[in-house]
């Protein structure tokens, strides 16, 4: 079942080029397709949610969009240009928070942010000012010189958020950004995303937290087995599936199994 994109259909013909376009992209690993003929668009000021069960191809899609992986087939365009034609120029305007908090664990938060900012060519004084401000706002200034190996998952995630935003990117790609964050930081992150969208940034938000997606995103794309099975606005998706929440809509569209029965069976495994 493909719930066709009512919100995108109009834009496709509008001649809008100031957007991210994923056009019929495939990605295969050793002959196995992780992403199949995926098409999506994201425009400035909009937050697009990327949903799907484990192994549905969300992270592969995200990694192709930030230029970490090359599509096997199809094309990813930014403002009408294939990103791989000018990858370095494209990566300068992308901010990325990866699913796993991968960092050089022997660096401190300041050293890591200096490395990222330096590689992005931010002038030293500006970088120092931004790093100080991010660490202060995230409550990390007392741990600024501690190695990242000593940081909790939430603290590392905050460093990654700072690293993704430090160069004021135009396109922000978030892969499970709230993983490990406490309630206050999660709420602050949602507010941050909404503010950035208001300021005209293009945002792609991949998450399992459907409540967060429902609050933050206007449009969603639901992936299953590497294909988009729904690509529309959150409101329209709820209407089409005749459900009250995004969680119910997602369950209707993307979850085949009887999750309640599965839960009961799991509980029985060790008691028998």
């Amino acid at each position: 079942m493909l719930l066709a994109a009512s919100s995108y259909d109009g834009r496709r013909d509008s001649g809008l080029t100031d957007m991210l376009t994923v056009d019929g992209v495939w990605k295969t690993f050793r002959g196995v397709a992780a992403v199949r003929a995926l098409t999506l668009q994201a425009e400035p000021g909009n937050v697009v949610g990327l949903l799907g069960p484990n192994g549905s191809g969300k992270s592969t899609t995200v990694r192709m969009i930030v230029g970490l992986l090359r599509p096997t087939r199809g094309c990813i365009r930014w403002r009408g240009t294939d990103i791989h034609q000018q990858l370095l120029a494209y990566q300068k305007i992308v901010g990325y928070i990866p699913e796993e908090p991968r960092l050089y664990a022997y660096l401190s938060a300041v050293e890591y942010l200096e490395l990222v900012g330096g590689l992005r060519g931010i002038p030293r004084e500006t970088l120092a000012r931004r790093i100080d401000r991010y660490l202060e706002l995230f409550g990390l200034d007392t741990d600024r010189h501690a190695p990242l190996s000593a940081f909790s998952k939430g603290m590392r995630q905050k460093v990654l958020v700072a690293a993704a935003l430090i160069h004021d990117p135009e396109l922000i790609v978030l892969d499970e950004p709230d993983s490990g964050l406490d309630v206050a930081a999660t709420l602050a992150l949602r507010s941050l995303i909404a503010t950035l969208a208001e300021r005209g940034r293009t945002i792609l938000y991949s998450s399992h937290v459907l409540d967060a997606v429902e609050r933050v995103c206007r449009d969603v794309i639901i992936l299953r087995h590497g294909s988009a099975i729904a690509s529309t606005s959150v409101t329209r998706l709820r209407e089409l599936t005749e459900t009250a929440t995004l969680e119910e809509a997602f369950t209707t569209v993307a979850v085949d199994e009887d999750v309640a029965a599965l839960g009961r069976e799991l509980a029985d495994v060790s008691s028998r």
Partner: protein
Amino acid sequence: MIRRHLPAPLGDEFDQFHLLCRGSVRRLLSAALLARDTDAALVATWALVLVATPAAMYAFHQLIDYSALGFQKASIVEHAIQVDRMFFLLYGMVVAALLAAATWEALLPDRADQEIVGSLPVRPRTVAAARLVASLWLAAIASAAISVPAAVFLAVAAPSHPALGYFPVVLVAHLIATMGASLFTFTLLLMARAVLALCFGAHASERLATALQVLTIAALAELFFFIPGVIPVLVDRLAAGDRFALLMPSMPYAALYSWMVGVSYPSLGFGAAMAPLALLLALTITIPLYLCPARRFAWRSLEMQPHQHAAVVSNVARLAVVALPASSAVRAVTTFTVTTLLRSRRHRLVVTAYFGLGLAVGTLSVLAGGMRGTLAFDRPETSLLALPLVIIFFLTLGLRTAFAIPSDVEANWVFRLSQPLVGSTGDAAAMSLLVLCVVPVTGLVVGSVLLLQWPTHDVLVLAVFDLACGCALTEWVLRDWRAVPFTCAPSGDVESLKSRWLGRIVPLLLFAFVNAAVQKAALRSDRAAAAYVVLAVIVWSAARAQRRWASRTLSVQFEASPSDSLSTLDLSEAR
């Protein structure tokens, strides 16, 4: 300075290169660290002191020796000094190889690097160039640490005899020749790393690190015990102008050293010219090998699924563990231990260091037998029988040391919650030693002596001997073991490495060399063989019973007490 003269795009890339170089040095040091939470700078400093000390001490010793050479003939002095110079060259080359083995996984940007840097606007070639330069810089620092003190001592000794050379020339010649030889070796290994990664993929290339580690440790030990006997032969060949000998990696640098100091051997000029050319050629090949396929390496490292190292070996080991008669807890801990060791490069590094030492000492005993004329391959001789015992001894100690280094302290909650008994963890550690060391070495012994066409009876008896001895040794090294392997956090206390090693020399002599002589005697009759086995089994059983008895009231340790802490190098006599 360079930055100011570059056009804008290149200038930006230079800035990135500069930043990445600094990061790469720390990445390389981090790869060489055995424990994750240790201070890289501190460990690097101590490691430099450790490798610089033997060369400096040797040079200082020569300073005293040379002062007594005043009335010797120039030709005799020249030959003697050539031998010493060759030692410094070989030492520098082996240390460079050791550095390459220790930092092997980080010599090329890998998946972890690409995950972090891949989404940033940085060219893969910039990352690769930074890693190459950082690697060479580290090698140069290590080489300088070895060469500078020795160069100063040898230069100070120069006025003792005209044949020793002129003071400043000796200083410069020593630095250029030894550092050139070290950098040449290191560059050759960088080249090998890149070629292997290009031809066989990153995983195959990374696996070579273990073999390289064993070889370099063995070579380092041999350098002190065995090579001093070989070096004079090499010097004779150099003096005779043997051009074929110049193909050996150290020889052109020895020729360069001699040529700079002013020794008048024939065809020295040819050898001296080869030295810088060899280094230049190695660099000329290595640089494009790093830079040209950098983009390909970057894509490939991200496209490849994370690889399970040693999957086949670990499955075989797991099957062996399942077959052992033990409780489920013992089997579970044994499987965890074996799998962790096979998958953890840091722990393998420790074990291979001990294995390399064992190989060197074992080879030495065989060669010593050969020199004494007691070595024979067609019948059991003490020098040959000692070889597997030496390897079992070092490997068992290496594994015991590796067990005490935690793999991931934060993950040990699984064991904390299940609270295995101390006796069970000791049994599991003992079984792991059997599976990882005693049984494979015994198997190798059986295979080797079968190849030597020994009588089947002798082969079987020898296998039983080595198994029984290995089991007894296993219990001896684990007599105070109270932890699940790889889960106990070190206390942070330090103790002298010297004291432990002195305490192990006597057990080594007893277990390997005296024991080999006893084995030789026991192999002469069935009755003696049976008595030997019974005695070994009694020792084993007694040690096992003592361990289990001592552990009955204790609980499993997850944080080491100061006396049980991991050995760290502490050369200070002040405490």
